[in-house]
């Protein structure tokens, strides 16, 4: 029952987003007249475009066809490239996957050791320093950090290319920018979930039984701390996709994020709505999967047993 409810809610969220995009698109008026000026386009031409792009019939018919097309994976034509929107979007997916993957690696590489260190020393000077850096990292916008890195590593030291793509060197700065800003938040979560787990009574009990500290940490602290981390990580990775819009624009990285900005600038709605749907579907399914794996990680919740 729980499982069914979760899935229903996920489906509802997707449907709500699809519908909102449709309503917003139609609220701006006739989409055909937004592209063509009726004064210098013949009525027949407008009519034939209307048929090609499926803008005929009542609003309800259009809505049903719209949902049907989306379900069939047809996202329409990109007005920027005059190619199917799906093709335009798909060729930008891989660079973003590379970027987000590398950034996630950096986020883990910073967040897990630093957060663990702070959790072991809660209340000490080390802990306070870690928290202070985390606050600073949180307040540092990615475009400021990115431009700072360009200024330092490209302009002054001439170590790395400041713009473009092609080699692994081009990936370093955008991945650092994205990874560091998210690591600031992630470190806090690692710290607080480990610190909470360390305070549990089962840890005291394990110590009383005379288990070694390493054993306690691996067998008792980590499993307890994993739960909140599993919840937050997909959210942070999703937030990276959104933050990529800024970072990719700063570094000229040809991924989805820059494509969003380009499609907004050119009002290429077919491309834009496809990205929105993709990101939303991705986030909703990941959240669903996280909800469902909960029961495996923590048998107490038992959401998976229906």
């Amino acid at each position: 029952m729980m499982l069914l409810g979760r899935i229903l809610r996920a489906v509802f969220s997707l449907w709500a987003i699809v519908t909102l995009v449709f309503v917003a698109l139609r609220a701006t008026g006739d989409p055909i007249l937004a592209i063509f000026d009726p004064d210098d386009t013949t009525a027949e031409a407008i009519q034939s475009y209307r048929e090609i792009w499926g803008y005929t019939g009542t609003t309800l018919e259009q809505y049903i066809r719209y949902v049907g097309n989306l379900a069939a994976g047809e996202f329409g034509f990109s007005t920027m490239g005059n190619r199917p929107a799906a093709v335009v979007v798909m060729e930008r997916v891989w660079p973003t996957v590379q970027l987000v993957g590398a950034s996630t690696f950096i986020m883990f590489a910073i967040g897990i050791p630093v957060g663990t260190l702070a959790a072991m020393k809660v209340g000490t000077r080390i802990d306070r320093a870690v928290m202070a850096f985390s606050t600073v990292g949180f307040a540092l916008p990615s475009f400021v950090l990115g431009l700072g890195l360009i200024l330092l590593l490209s302009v002054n030291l001439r170590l790395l290319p400041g713009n473009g793509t092609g080699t692994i060197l081009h990936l370093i700065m955008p991945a650092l920018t994205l990874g560091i800003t998210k690591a600031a938040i992630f470190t806090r979560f690692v710290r607080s979930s480990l610190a909470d787990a360390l305070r549990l009574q089962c840890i005291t009990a394990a110590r009383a039984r005379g288990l070694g500290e390493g054993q306690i940490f691996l067998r008792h602290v980590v499993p307890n701390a994993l739960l909140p981390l599993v919840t937050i990580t997909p959210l942070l990775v999703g937030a990276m996709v959104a933050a990529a819009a800024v970072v990719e624009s700063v570094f000229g990285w040809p991924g989805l994020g820059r494509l969003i900005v380009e499609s907004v600038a050119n009002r290429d709605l077919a491309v834009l709505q496809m990205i929105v749907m993709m990101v939303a579907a991705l986030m909703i399914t990941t959240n669903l999967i996280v909800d469902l794996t909960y029961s495996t990680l923590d048998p107490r919740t038992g959401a998976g047993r229906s």
Partner: protein
Amino acid sequence: MAQDPSSENAARSGALGSFLRLPAGVILSFLWVGACLSLVLILPLGVDLNANAIDLLARLKPPVGFGGEWAHPLGTDDLGRDVLARLIESLRTSLVIALGATIMSAVLGTLVGITAAHFGGWIDQVVVAAVDTQVSVPFVIVSLTLTAIFGTSLVLFVIVLGLFGWERYARLARAMTLASRGRGYVLAMRTLGFPWPRIYLRHVLPNIASSLLVTATVTFPEVILLETSLSFLGVGIQPPMNSLGNMLGFGRSYLLTGWWIAVAPGAAIFLCALSVSIIGDWARSVIGRL
């Protein structure tokens, strides 16, 4: 309305001594926010900043300390406009918009949350589902989409920013209102025949205001970052208006020849977001101890 996040007034209205006993970071944050607010509110009343005045003979002058003169303390940009004047004007735009947007989303979210808790049933279900949906799409993408569909306009931009974070207030207000409905004082007021709006406004809201205020101080820096990001990308504040984001966006082209054009707004954004975050963290810990 208690949503105004400048809790510095509350801190100062006590003795100066207790203010000085706060952690140094919090004091510095209050001072920076206070300085920004007074620059933003007081200075432009009497002084004409002339932020868009072009002086082509004084192009790309460096700031004082890097070979510049006091006529332009932070240097000039590619058109010879004074960076300091532009910075103050940008700061004013960005802070006013962020403040307005925070108040908007706090009021909206709280209203939605209390309404959901009051009526329950399908209204509550719809609100919970809407909150779920909002959480599932990153807000940057929502605002980019809305800008693409409706075009860039100041009114739309402020409305979009005013939606940012509504779900946090809604969730919080709903949960706390539900909890308070079972409390003795609410039952007593109901028994005495007071109407619900009065109970919510005069009794429930003051009880949950501190938590909402902390949410606002945590959300405010994010609103600043969102506004500056969008303006940086060129889909937010449009010229001839200046905001910290679009100032940084223009300065980005001059990193090689005039780094100060980008560094000044970049540092301002960072310091504003940082100081409000520090104040927010501090406020949260104070309320947590109560």
